[in-house]
C-alpha cells in the first residue's frame, strides 16, 4: 500500500498537465533536488551591465513594440550529470520590426555558482559565442525569429557536487526581449524572471509513534498509544519510547534514525503487551512531497525470570523486512539503543524502443519515484542492554561457502584414509 500511494502520487504529478507543471526533480542517485522558482516579471534591465561591456552602445529600457512573452515549458530536470531547469517560450509583438532590425534576447544571470572566473550578475553566455551581447548569435536567431516573434529555449544546470561548498545552489535569470538595429542600439522590452534552486534531498527529521497494540487495551493495560512513549502492564510497568533524530545521509549510507529506549518492568500476567507497531515518519526538509511513514512491527517478549540475568532479560524484536534484530534489557532496568537505517531509491523504468533509440537519452529512462527505508542495525546499546540478531544474507552466504569448502576437504581426507575401499558415492 505504501508503494501504491507513492506511485499514485507520481502518476498524479505526471498527469497534472504539460512538462511545465513539474516543479521539482530528484537527481538520478536521489541525493539532490532541484526546484524551479515561480516565474515573475523581471525588473528593468540594468543597462550598465551591457554598456560597460560594450562601450559606445545605446541600450534603452522601453516596451519593445509592446509585445509579450509566452512560456511553453518551465520544468525542473536533470541532464548531463547536472540539475537545473528547462525554460522554453516565445516573444511576439503585433508590429514587425523594420528592415535591418532584429528581435533577440538579452539574458542576465545571477548565480551563486557562476561560470568560472565570472562574477554575478553577468550576460549569458559566458564565455560569449560571438561579439554581441545577445543570447542568440546572428546565425542562431535567423532560424528562430521572424519580424514579429523570436523563440527562446534554455536548460541551465549545475553539478550537484557543488553543493559540498555552496548550499543551496541558486540560479536565476532575467530574460529580456530586445530589438537590435544591427549596429549599436538596443531597445529592451519587459523581462521575465525564472530560475531554480538545488538542495540536498535527504535532509530531514524522523519522528515516531507507537500504535496498534497487541492485545488491545483493554484487556491489556497500556498508555501513550499514538505518542512516542508508551507504558504497559500493571505492577511495575514496562515501557518503550523512541526519540527521532535529524538525518542527512547519502542514499545507501547507514544513518541514525533515532534512539529506542526500553524499560523491562515486572508486570502482572495478562496486563502486558506482546506486540506493537512503531510508525516512523520521515520528513524531508527540501522535498516534503516525498515524506512517508514506515511501519515496523515489534514483538515484546517477556521471558521467565531465572537466576540467569541474561536469559531473563526481556527483549523487543523487530520484524521489518530482512531486519530482525532484538534488543534485550536486563530485568528491572532501562536501556537505550540507536536504530540505524538507510534510504534506497525507488525507480520506474521506461525501456527505450530498440528501433528508435535517441543517442542523447539514456537507453532506458529511469524515473525517481521516492525512497524506501531499510532498517539495518540496532547499535550502541547502553549499559543493561544488548543486541542480538540473525546473520545478514551476506554473512550467511559466506557461512555456506565455508561449509561447502569443509565438505570438500573432509570428503577428500576420508578418501585418502580409506585406501582399498570402494570410492564414495
Amino acid at each position, binding site marked *: 500500500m505504501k508503494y501504491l500511494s507513492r506511485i499514485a502520487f507520481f502518476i498524479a504529478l505526471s498527469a497534472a498537465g504539460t512538462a511545465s507543471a513539474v516543479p521539482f526533480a530528484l537527481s538520478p542517485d536521489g541525493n539532490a533536488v532541484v526546484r524551479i522558482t515561480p516565474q515573475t516579471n523581471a525588473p528593468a534591465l540594468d543597462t550598465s551591465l551591457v554598456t560597460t561591456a560594450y562601450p559606445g552602445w545605446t541600450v534603452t529600457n522601453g516596451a519593445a513594440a509592446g509585445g509579450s512573452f509566452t512560456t511553453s515549458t518551465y520544468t525542473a530536470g536533470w541532464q548531463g550529470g547536472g540539475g537545473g531547469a528547462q525554460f522554453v517560450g516565445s516573444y511576439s509583438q503585433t508590429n514587425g520590426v523594420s528592415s535591418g532590425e532584429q528581435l533577440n534576447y538579452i539574458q542576465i544571470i545571477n548565480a551563486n555558482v557562476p561560470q568560472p572566473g565570472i562574477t554575478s550578475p553577468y550576460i*549569458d553566455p559566458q564565455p560569449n*559565442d560571438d561579439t554581441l551581447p545577445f543570447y542568440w548569435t546572428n546565425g542562431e536567431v535567423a532560424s528562430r525569429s521572424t519580424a514579429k516573434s523570436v523563440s527562446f529555449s534554455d536548460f541551465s544546470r549545475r*553539478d550537484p557536487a557543488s553543493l559540498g561548498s555552496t548550499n543551496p545552489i541558486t540560479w536565476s535569470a532575467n530574460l529580456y526581449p530586445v530589438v537590435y538595429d544591427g549596429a549599436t542600439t538596443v531597445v529592451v522590452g519587459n523581462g521575465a524572471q525564472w530560475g531554480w534552486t538545488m538542495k540536498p534531498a535527504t535532509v530531514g527529521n524522523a519522528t515516531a509513534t507507537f500504535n496498534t497494540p497487541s492485545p488491545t487495551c483493554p484487556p491489556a493495560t497500556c498508555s501513550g498509544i499514538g505518542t512516542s512513549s508508551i507504558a504497559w502492564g500493571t505492577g511495575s510497568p514496562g515501557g518503550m519510547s523512541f526519540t527521532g533524530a535529524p538525518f542527512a545521509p547519502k542514499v545507501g549510507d547507514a544513518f541514525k534514525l533515532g534512539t529506542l529506549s526500553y524499560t523491562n518492568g515486572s508486570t502482572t500476567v495478562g496486563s502486558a503487551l506482546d506486540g506493537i507497531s512503531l510508525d516512523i515518519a520521515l520528513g524531508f526538509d527540501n522535498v516534503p512531497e516525498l515524506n512517508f511513514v514506515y511501519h515496523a512491527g515489534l514483538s515484546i517478549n517477556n521471558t521467565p525470570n531465572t537466576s540467569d540475568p541474561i536469559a531473563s532479560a526481556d527483549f523487543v524484536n523487530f520484524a521489518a523486512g530482512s531486519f530482525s534484530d532484538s534488543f534485550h534489557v536486563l530485568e528491572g532496568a532501562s536501556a537505550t539503543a540507536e536504530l540505524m537505517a538507510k534510504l534506497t531509491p525507488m525507480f520506474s523504468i521506461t525501456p527505450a524502443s530498440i528501433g528508435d533509440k535517441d543517442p*542523447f537519452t539514456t537507453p532506458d529512462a529511469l524515473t525517481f519515484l521516492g525512497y524506501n527505508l531499510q532498517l539495518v542495525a540496532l547499535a550502541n546499546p547502553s549499559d543493561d542492554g544488548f543486541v542480538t540478531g540473525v546473520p545478514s544474507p551476506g554473512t550467511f552466504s559466506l557461512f555456506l561457502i565455508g561449509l561447502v569448502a569443509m565438505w570438500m576437504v573432509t570428503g577428500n581426507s576420508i578418501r585418502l584414509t580409506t585406501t582399498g575401499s570402494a570410492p564414495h558415492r
Partner: protein
Amino acid sequence: MNRWTCFAVLFAALVFGPLDCLASESPKPLNVEAMCFEHIGPQDKPMPAFCVSAFGVAHSIMGILRAADVPPIQLTSETWRALLDLIEKEGSKDVGHPTVPGQYQLRLIPLGGILYLPPEAMRKITLALIKINGLNDAQSQMLQRLKLRIAG
C-alpha cells in the same frame, strides 16, 4: 567430474565470468560508424550537441542522429581515422566531476559505449573539425560557437 574439478569450474565461472564481461564492455572506437557529442556538467546557455560519422554510413545509422543541433558532419575516411586516433588518445571512461564548461560525453554508434572528453580534448577536436571541407553554414557556425565557448 570429481569434487575439485566441480569446485574449480564453479570458481572460474564465478570469478572470471564477470571479469570477462567487464572486459568486453570496453569500447572499441575503431569499430564505430558514428559518434555523437553531448555536453555534460555546468552550463547556462546550452552548449552545442552534434554528431559526426564516417562518410557513406548506412542510412539506418544516420536515422538515429537526429537529436543534434545540426545535421551530422560526414568525414572522409582519412579524417575519420585521425579523429578516432585522437579520441582513443584523449577519451576517458571516467567522467569525474566536471566543474568547468566544455566537458563532453561521446556516444559511440552502434556500440552504444560512452567516452568522456575533457575541455582541452574537445577544443582540439573542434579545431580539427573546423578545418575540414564540406561543412554547411549551420555546421560551420556551430563549431565556431563551440570554439569560442570552450575556454582554451
